[in-house]
């Protein structure tokens, strides 16, 4: 099976993924697994106990904000993982730890088996940055307004693909712009950011990331500031990139519906910790963690009837400043037991590939297994 051509990729980038066709990424993954059975389960990026604390307050009341606590997740090649949570959940901080904007307080990040803390030289750092770029949330402030939109992508190419000549850089910039759906590339490159719409600017963000031939794109709420009818175009672009360019994407969002639309796997975060993770259909159909259940019932779905399960919860933000041991969801949890107030529940695998951090859910699964 030949690689899809550029124009096909452009079409795939915005046309809806055909439900019946097996995506190229799955075929590639199968090919990888067949070639090397032991590497089939190896993750592209893996975190181990990733933790980030911030010191807040000053003088007499210095306290610690536990933005991210003991997060261990893994992202495979050619897959989209959605990191879902509300504000205060730590999802954005996790993304910034992976992008090396923050240094972790504890824990480790592995990219293809190599640890990040071992990176010393600038060359190694640049190599990591080209493997794991980031797309930002706000289309209005994520591009420098003074320069044309060609500026960012040409800098990306210059820094990370120095083997290209000037002419080749230009041609590559045009090609990538067309892959993300900004056509004609040569013309759009000459525009200023204020001449583009929000959706177009976000595509520019993806183009800048793609220029580095990344392995994993960190997309921090890329569609939440866009109009609803524009969002689908970008979500389709993301799935198209996964299929055609074999890029993994960590899609950070608070919108479960869009997470379900694009993602292969879902990771739910609450109060800086992972509450539940697993294949997206599984987690949404049979959520094990009470927080996931709450989220699922609170999502407004125009085609479904209103579920009343979420009516009593106010949506108060979690306590992450100097938290005490125990489950951080216990104050809002309808199922909380004694253990929940004393012991922080670890993330346990309840079903193959489906884990949750909940004492009640774990006990429930053990009972069933019994």
């Amino acid at each position, binding site marked *: 099976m030949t690689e899809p051509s550029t124009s096909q990729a452009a079409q795939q980038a915005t046309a809806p993924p055909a439900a019946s066709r097996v995506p190229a990424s799955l075929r590639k993954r199968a090919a990888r697994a067949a070639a090397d059975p032991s590497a089939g389960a190896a993750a592209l990026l893996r975190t181990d106990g990733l933790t980030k604390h911030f010191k807040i307050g000053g003088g007499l009341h210095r306290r610690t904000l536990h933005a991210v606590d003991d997060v261990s997740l893994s992202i495979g090649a050619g897959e989209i993982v959605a990191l879902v949570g509300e504000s205060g959940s730590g999802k954005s901080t996790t993304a910034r730890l992976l992008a090396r904007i923050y240094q972790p307080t504890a824990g480790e990040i592995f990219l293809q088996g190599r640890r990040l803390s071992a990176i010393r030289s600038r060359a190694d750092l640049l190599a990591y940055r080209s493997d794991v770029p980031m797309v930002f949330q706000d289309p209005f402030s994520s591009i420098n307004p003074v320069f044309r939109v060609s500026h960012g992508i040409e800098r990306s190419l210059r820094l*990370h693909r120095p083997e290209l000549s000037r002419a080749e850089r230009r041609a590559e910039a045009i090609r990538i712009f067309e892959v993300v759906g900004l056509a004609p590339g040569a013309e759009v490159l000459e525009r200023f950011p204020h*001449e583009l719409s929000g959706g177009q600017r976000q595509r520019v963000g993806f183009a800048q990331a793609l220029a580095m031939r990344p392995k994993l794109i960190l997309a921090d709420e890329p569609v939440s500031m866009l109009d609803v009818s524009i969002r689908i175009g970008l979500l389709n672009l993301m799935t198209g990139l996964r299929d055609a360019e074999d890029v993994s994407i960590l899609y950070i969002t608070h919108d479960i519906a869009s997470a379900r639309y694009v993602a292969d796997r879902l990771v739910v975060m609450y109060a800086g910790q992972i509450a539940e993770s697993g294949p997206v259909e599984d987690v949404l159909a049979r959520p094990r963690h009470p927080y996931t259940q709450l989220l699922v019932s609170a999502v407004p779905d125009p085609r479904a009837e209103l579920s009343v399960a979420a009516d009593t919860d106010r949506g108060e933000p979690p306590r992450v400043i100097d938290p005490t041991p125990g489950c951080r969801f216990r104050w809002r949890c309808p199922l909380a037991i004694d253990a929940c107030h004393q012991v922080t529940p670890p993330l346990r695998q309840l079903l193959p590939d489906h884990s949750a951090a909940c004492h009640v859910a774990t006990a429930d699964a053990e009972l069933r297994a019994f």
Partner: protein
Amino acid sequence: MASTELSAGLGPTITPSAGQPHAQSGAPPSRAREAATKTGQAFLRLFRTLRSNRKASAGFILLAFVCVLAAVPGLIAHDPPRAEIYGRSLGPSASHLFGTTVYGQDIFAQFIWGARETLIIAVVSGVLSTALSVVMGVAAAYLGGVWDGGLNLVTDTLLVIPSFPLLLIIAAYLPNSGVVVLIAILVITGYSYGARQLRAQALSLRGRDYLEAARVRGERSVYIIAVEIIPTMTPLIVATFLGTAVYNVLFAAGLQFIGFGNPASVSWGTMLYWAQNNEALSIGQYLWALMPGLGIAILGASFALLNYAFDEIGNPALRPVRRHRVKRPR
């Protein structure tokens, strides 16, 4: 119909405008030619904004006027400006258009010749002072931490030390020092105010996503400060320059009075001081005080008006909109 299908297939497209020359994806020009075209384009853009913006054109004309005076004063005024050879305190007449000073100097000649030194002091001290403000202010804001603390300590100290006593002491050690020392003094004592302003603006810009995007792209800090931050601060930097330049003209006159530079030199600032010292207004020699004041006002006004043009260049959103859609008849 066709356009709908096209956009459905490829996502949002920009309809190319008819008749606009684009850089097509043909053979790209050589590096030198491209650099030349870029500077040429920048100047063209500057002229276009000056022409289109009435305030900017007015400012440009006023500045041109002062520059002409500074460039060829001998062609306009035939009398020597410093010679005290004429009758004292004469009123305006055919031979002395603005009259003469208490010392017997021709005021018209002084006014014409004074433009040169005033302009040089204004521009040079303004540029150097602004450059120092930018470096100290923006670097402190972006680098933060120890750098911020250290640079701020220097800036704030200079801001707080009373300048005239300090200058009197320095003057005692450097009598008759000339224009270079004068400008150096102006720069060192004058940059701190601008540095604080620029630092404040840079701090507010520090959280912008495009700076984080540049970091994640792998850019070094120096690059980010120079290329990503400073160009977006152009309007404030230019405003700082303009304010500093005009203020320095007057401050220079005061410095010249206490012994820096050459006290006998002719500039609009020194004219003002001598006029004020001899109570020109009360002895009826109005033009002695008014003309240099008018000159400084013209210079200041031209800078202020030109600020509008730089606002547009610095913020592309303010530029005149290019038509890039085919205009449908109403």
